[in-house]
């Protein structure tokens, strides 16, 4: 009984993901199933559908429901200077290499609502590299990208951001970069001077030029192994020899088919460097 029930649910999930792909070109078909299953169960409950098939019928015929689906299907948890030791390693170990380039391009892939992007811009400003850098911030979730472009966060989060910034070796005070009002923290728009925001999927899109640094944190954990290989393949193509790739603290290239294209640069922080070939 139960066994059959579980299998029906998996069929429904597969059909819903197909529907989203064919109708809207959002491709979640190779995402990690355990997490997709959990979030679609949540969506079904919270949006009040009896079955996942019923939800599929609705989203297929009502484009206005797509944003709801995306909200459940993409995970939008982020912080400024999340894992301060990662940003400390970028500052201390990666920046000295980047200084040797007259101009820089860096790519924040899966930037969510912008916290990681602004962390990089502030770090680069503090290190005197901002002027020569073009930042690409990409994501597939339009609501998240709009928030990233706005650069406005709940004031209650600023304390954590400030602590993280300090722990990451931040030079000035984070408060130099924002103003407050109406319980919100509004980041200085000058931080966006050299930023390009763009809708880009690591599943269906191609690379767009050579980057000296790619930071893609806590995005590929939602992909299955094959899809991770595709995404890392993109990074392999976009990084020249000696370019850097930073991942989330529990992500690794150990299991990747592209492991031979990289070496561990700061092992504990999951910062890799592109090697020849």
């Amino acid at each position, binding site marked *: 009984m*139960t*066994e059959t029930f*579980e299998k029906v649910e998996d069929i429904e999930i597969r059909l819903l993901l197909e529907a989203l792909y064919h109708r809207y070109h959002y491709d979640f078909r190779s995402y*990690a*199933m*355990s*997490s997709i*299953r*959990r*979030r679609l169960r949540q969506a079904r409950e919270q949006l009040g559908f009896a079955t996942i098939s019923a939800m599929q019928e609705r989203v297929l015929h009502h484009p206005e429901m797509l944003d709801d689906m995306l909200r459940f299907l993409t*995970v939008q*948890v982020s912080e400024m200077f999340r894992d301060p030791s990662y940003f400390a390693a970028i500052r201390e170990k990666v920046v000295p290499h980047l200084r040797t380039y007259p101009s820089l391009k860096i790519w924040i892939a899966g930037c969510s609502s912008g916290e990681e992007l602004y962390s990089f811009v502030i770090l680069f400003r503090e290190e005197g590299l901002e002027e020569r850098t073009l930042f690409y911030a990409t994501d597939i979730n339009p609501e998240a990208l709009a928030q990233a472009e706005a650069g406005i966060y709940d004031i209650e989060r600023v304390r954590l951001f400030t602590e993280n910034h300090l722990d990451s070796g931040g030079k000035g005070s984070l408060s130099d970069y924002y103003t407050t009002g109406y319980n919100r923290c509004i980041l200085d728009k000058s931080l966006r001077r050299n930023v390009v925001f763009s809708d880009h999927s690591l599943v269906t899109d191609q690379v767009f030029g050579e980057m000296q640094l790619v930071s893609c944190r*806590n995005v*590929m*954990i*939602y992909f*299955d*192994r094959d899809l*991770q290989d595709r995404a890392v393949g993109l990074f392999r193509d976009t990084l020249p020899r000696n370019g850097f790739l930073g991942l*989330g*603290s*529990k*992500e*690794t290239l*150990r*299991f990747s088919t592209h492991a031979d294209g990289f070496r561990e640069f700061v092992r504990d922080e999951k910062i890799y460097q592109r090697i020849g070939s």
Partner: protein
Amino acid sequence: MKDNPNGAIIIGASAGALEALSMILPPLPATYPYPIFVVVHLPPNKRSVLAAIFDLKCQLRAIEAEDKEPVEAGFIYFAPPNYHLSLEGRTHVALSSEEEVLFSRPSIDVAFESAADAWGSQLTAIVLTGANHDGSQGLSAVVRSGGTAIVQDPSEAFARAMPEAAIRACPSAQVLTLSKISTYLQNIENEH
């Protein structure tokens, strides 16, 4: 290629976890036939030393899981702080930074539910000491999928709220002392 294991153990624990796990994991032999997943509530922003401690204490290898870690018999996989651990089928561990569940990341419920999906009746799930209600929902999912549910006897638990909640949610669970749980795990192949 090694044969895929035909069963798995998953354990959830909170306050008092170290002592409780120290009674049941070290006696297991290096040739243990199943993988063991362990979810312990941890402070989010500190590195955890649990896997290192148990790697020293145990005959089995204990590691903190990274994303898409392959699953093998004879390994103990600890959930890292600040990530949910789930099972991606029977072959891999997956991590996620989704919202906290019942104020916890890792969440025992999340891990148990995915383990129930992956292993069905071949799963043994154990709820140990803890001062919250995490694990009850997950244990119910394990029971619904035909798995074996075990709860530490609350009367000997360092914190009794978590095992008590699990028993309320799963009246069919076996309620055992740590020493009985230890025996159960050592004889697991005869228990099924």
